[in-house]
């Protein structure tokens, strides 16, 4: 650090014609590098904010201070080397003190020239160009204190962004950035008519591959930088100066008002040391005209039709507009509708009557205004037969109709007759449909996709496959069949498709058969009340059914009672468990509901490790507890909603700690954060990244006890864990924990 400090207290004498209140003096305490002039700029303001004058002040002698003009209510003292100091004149005081904190001064480019931008490391903080210090001030750059983002752009090199620099740690003898590739990007945009685009686009920097968290933050910082400083348009040419290091791993997304975003990579021809991407044409906005006529008898009125157009994805190199136009139109059969201001891409048009979706059509929408789609609303029929792998008919099989990308159960479902035949009738406006059958509840579906107006519609053959699996579930000790085991199959087929199926055993044999599977691997998960879960993976052949036997071990029982803060039972509380050790899970875990006296019973895995349970009850915070099975009734206390514990996290220099999570540990076990979505939305237990003010809020998830708290922070290369000490939770109402971090990790 160059700041060879010489502490001075400045004093000055005002001109004789000014009214002086000798009792109000300004004491400036500032440090200057040796050999530089100790000059600061003092500006005085009246009570109504009007400036009373400004002047450069060169401290004359230590400890004398300077007199302020009459009527001064506020004073601002600044210098290129210091943080600006503002102080208020209090009526009863004779001395106004302004200690000036020195800024970090550094020479990032060695002896070469360059430019520097900086911003405070806060969301939305603007980048400000830092003027170089004159020789008189010792050269280099002086940057604000605290944690800052820096952009360094040495002349002749590309720019580099340094995130999360603690200004106090800046080294004045920093090595100059390597001179390497050209650092400027130049591109000229023309609209569809060839006219130059003169508006400055919003430039977003995006990664090519999914970024790590810190990369995401860095790219967001570049976007903020271009928004403020880095993008200029002159004579129709956009210049990005500088551009990030490793630019081959990012794309620039240029967003012009009212236009689709243009995505481009920074790779192209070099012209005079500048990366020149040449001229890029912005694609035309386009439109789609949809006409629909009725092929139904005159007396049949379907009512209004709704056309919903949705962008599946824009073509490569474009991104969707920030404001999507309204893509829904109401028409009647025999009329037309136009969607305009569309960006080129792949769309899907759904045609709906008030009752159902009657068409789902993929529509490529190209540039220009020639996109037309003619639809006809007709009544169609699909007929066919359901048969097994030997060609024998299957009667009473469920057959249904499905359209791509439409939600919900099909309204068109029938059962086959004794000959295995079926016929489905439905309204149709276009697109293909899938006809499926599920011969029995335990069989996988068979489906074919077809055009209902095509030749195949009259003779659809739905044939089951011989592949299948037969699962027998027994008590592992007694070998008796278990008649109420629930089986869940995750089916991963050879062709990469997957699905899941469910079944339940019944006595006397405890067997479930799943049929109509194609070759692939199957994971079987068996659960039964009073037993531990069992999982087995088997391979299924396409041409025969496999047989599997699962033996379930008896589970241990947990008896518990859910109690409110005052010790009163909480009837109706829902206890989820056992839960995995980590936050989040697929699907809803098993659960039980507490009885009127707050008690519950649950099967838990045997063994020495405790199991995690979650308790959800109206008016209470989500509770998470590690528990062991026991025949004794164990209490679980809930905390009323609305009570928070708060931790304030600040670095030693007072800067709030952001992007940090609080981690709680009790008896050597982590207390998980978010758990069940509904509980979170009810104000549950989420240890969020610290908010802007540096406070972490959590609460209600913990039962009374002593906890060890850690802060978990994102840092380049991984996480940093900082111990915050042990605390007794919950805290008394309104209390806060203050845990200043002593060091910057």
């Amino acid at each position, binding site marked *: 650090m160059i700041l060879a400090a010489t502490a001075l207290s400045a004093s000055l004498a005002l001109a004789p014609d000014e009214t002086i209140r000798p009792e109000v003096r300004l004491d400036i305490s500032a440090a200057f590098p040796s050999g530089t002039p100790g000059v600061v700029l003092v500006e005085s303001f009246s009570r109504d904010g009007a400036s009373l004058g400004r002047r450069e002040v060169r401290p004359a002698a230590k400890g004398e201070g300077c007199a302020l003009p009459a009527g001064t209510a506020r004073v601002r003292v600044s210098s290129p080397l210091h943080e600006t100091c503002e102080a208020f004149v209090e009526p009863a005081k004779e001395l106004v003190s302004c200690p000036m904190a020195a800024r970090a001064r550094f020479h990032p480019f060695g002896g070469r020239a360059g430019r520097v931008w900086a911003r405070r490391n806060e969301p939305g903080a603007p980048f400000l160009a830092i003027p170089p210090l004159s020789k008189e001030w010792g050269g280099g750059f002086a940057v604000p204190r605290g944690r800052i983002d820096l952009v360094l752009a040495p002349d002749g090199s590309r720019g580099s962004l340094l995130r999360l620099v603690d200004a106090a740690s800046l080294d004045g003898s920093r090595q100059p950035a390597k001179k390497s590739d050209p650092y400027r990007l130049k591109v000229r945009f023309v609209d569809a008519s060839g006219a130059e685009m003169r508006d400055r686009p919003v430039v977003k920097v995006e990664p090519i591959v999914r970024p790590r968290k810190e990369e995401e933050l860095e790219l967001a910082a570049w976007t903020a930088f271009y928004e403020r400083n880095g993008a200029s348009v002159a004579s129709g040419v956009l210049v990005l100066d500088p551009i990030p290091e490793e630019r081959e791993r990012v794309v620039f997304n240029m967003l012009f008002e009212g236009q689709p975003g243009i995505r481009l*990579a920074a*790779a192209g021809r070099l012209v005079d040391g500048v990366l020149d991407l040449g001229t890029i044409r912005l694609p035309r906005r386009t439109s789609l005209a949809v006409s629909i006529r009725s092929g139904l008898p005159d007396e049949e009125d379907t009512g209004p039709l709704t056309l919903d157009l949705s962008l599946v994805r824009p*073509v490569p*190199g474009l991104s969707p507009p920030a404001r999507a136009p309204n893509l829904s139109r109401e028409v009647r059969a025999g009329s037309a509708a136009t969607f305009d201001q569309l960006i080129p891409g792949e769309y899907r048009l759904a045609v709906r009557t008030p009752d159902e979706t009657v068409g789902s059509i993929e529509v490529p929408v*190209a540039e220009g205004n020639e996109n037309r789609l003619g639809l006809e609303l007709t009544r169609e029929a699909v007929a066919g037969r359901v048969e097994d792998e030997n060609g024998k008919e299957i009667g009473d099989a469920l057959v249904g109709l*499905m359209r791509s990308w439409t939600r919900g159960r099909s309204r068109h479902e029938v059962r086959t007759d004794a000959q295995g035949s079926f016929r489905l009738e439905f309204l149709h406006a276009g697109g293909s449909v899938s006809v*499926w059958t599920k011969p029995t509840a335990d069989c996988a579906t068979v489906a074919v996709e077809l055009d209902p107006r095509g030749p195949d519609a009259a003779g659809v053959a739905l044939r089951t496959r011989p592949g299948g699996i037969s699962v027998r579930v027994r008590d592992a000790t007694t070998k008796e069949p278990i008649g109420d085991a629930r089986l869940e199959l995750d089916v991963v087929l050879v062709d990469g498709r997957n*699905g899941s199926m469910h079944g339940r055993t019944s006595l006397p044999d405890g067997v479930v058969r799943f049929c109509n599977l194609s070759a692939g691997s199957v994971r079987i998960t068996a659960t039964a009340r009073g037993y531990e879960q069992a999982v087995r993976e088997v391979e299924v052949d396409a041409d025969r059914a496999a047989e599997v036997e699962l033996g379930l071990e008896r589970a241990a029982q947990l008896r518990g009672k859910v109690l409110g803060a005052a010790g009163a039972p909480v009837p109706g509380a829902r206890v989820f468990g056992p839960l995995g050790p980590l936050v989040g899970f697929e699907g809803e875990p098993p659960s039980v509901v507490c009885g009127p006296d707050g008690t519950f019973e649950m099967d838990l895995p045997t063994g020495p490790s405790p199991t995690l349970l979650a308790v959800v009850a109206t008016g209470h915070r989500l509770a998470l507890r590690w528990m062991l099975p026991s025949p004794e009734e164990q209490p679980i206390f809930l905390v009323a909603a609305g009570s928070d514990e708060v931790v304030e996290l600040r670095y030693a220099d007072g800067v709030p700690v952001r992007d940090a999570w609080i981690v709680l540990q009790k008896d050597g076990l982590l207390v998980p954060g978010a758990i069940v979505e509904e509980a979170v939305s009810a104000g549950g237990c989420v240890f969020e990244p610290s908010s802007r003010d540096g406070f972490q809020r959590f609460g209600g998830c913990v039962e009374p006890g002593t906890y060890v708290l850690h802060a978990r922070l994102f840092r380049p290369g991984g996480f940093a864990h900082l111990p915050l000490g042990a605390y007794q939770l919950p805290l008394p109402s309104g209390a806060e924990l203050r845990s200043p971090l002593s060091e910057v990790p």
Partner: protein
Amino acid sequence: MKLPLRPAICVVLLAAAFRGGASPADGKPGSGLGPVSRAERPPSDDESEASRLREAARIEGLGGPATVTLARWLLSHSRFDEALPFLSHSCGARRDEWSCAAAATVHVARGEWVPARRIAAEYVERACFESDRLRTVTLLESPALAVTAGEGLVRLAPTDQMSYLLLAAAQHLSGLEEQAARTIAEGRRNRRTNVKLLESVRWGAVRSAPEPAP
């Protein structure tokens, strides 16, 4: 009926891709940029390199990383017919984006639109990663839209010969023969090394390779 892709499968395939030594950027749109892509590294001209790779592919089994390397070597020597089976194995077994894109563009260069579209459609429907190149192949059925897509490809991967080839194909199918020829020429200019795919184009005004012997 389309079943949703299972994330676990994608994880397995992704792991397989990394075991094969692929860079995280491979198989991503724009991954043909500069030194990021494997496809940009000039392969050795030595014929013994091919023998070595054939042996490695035999030991490893078709579809492994050696298969991709061998296919790349064959492509760089304009031995497209030999390369196609290896590309198909790698595309089918590992859903390797580069292999699928290379196989599809070999067919595109020959004007064999149906197999090109089949390869691309299978990838787009089933693979875990998006692929701008293969999506553009599927869009060749709507040439006007494919032209816009091809222009986007060239913006995103201006050093990838496949970008120029697919843009030129879209222009050719739109009847813009002159522009297609310009695109191929620009591709050859921007790619100073391997332009074998661009040289193999056999349609329209940009026809640059001899017809195969009958």
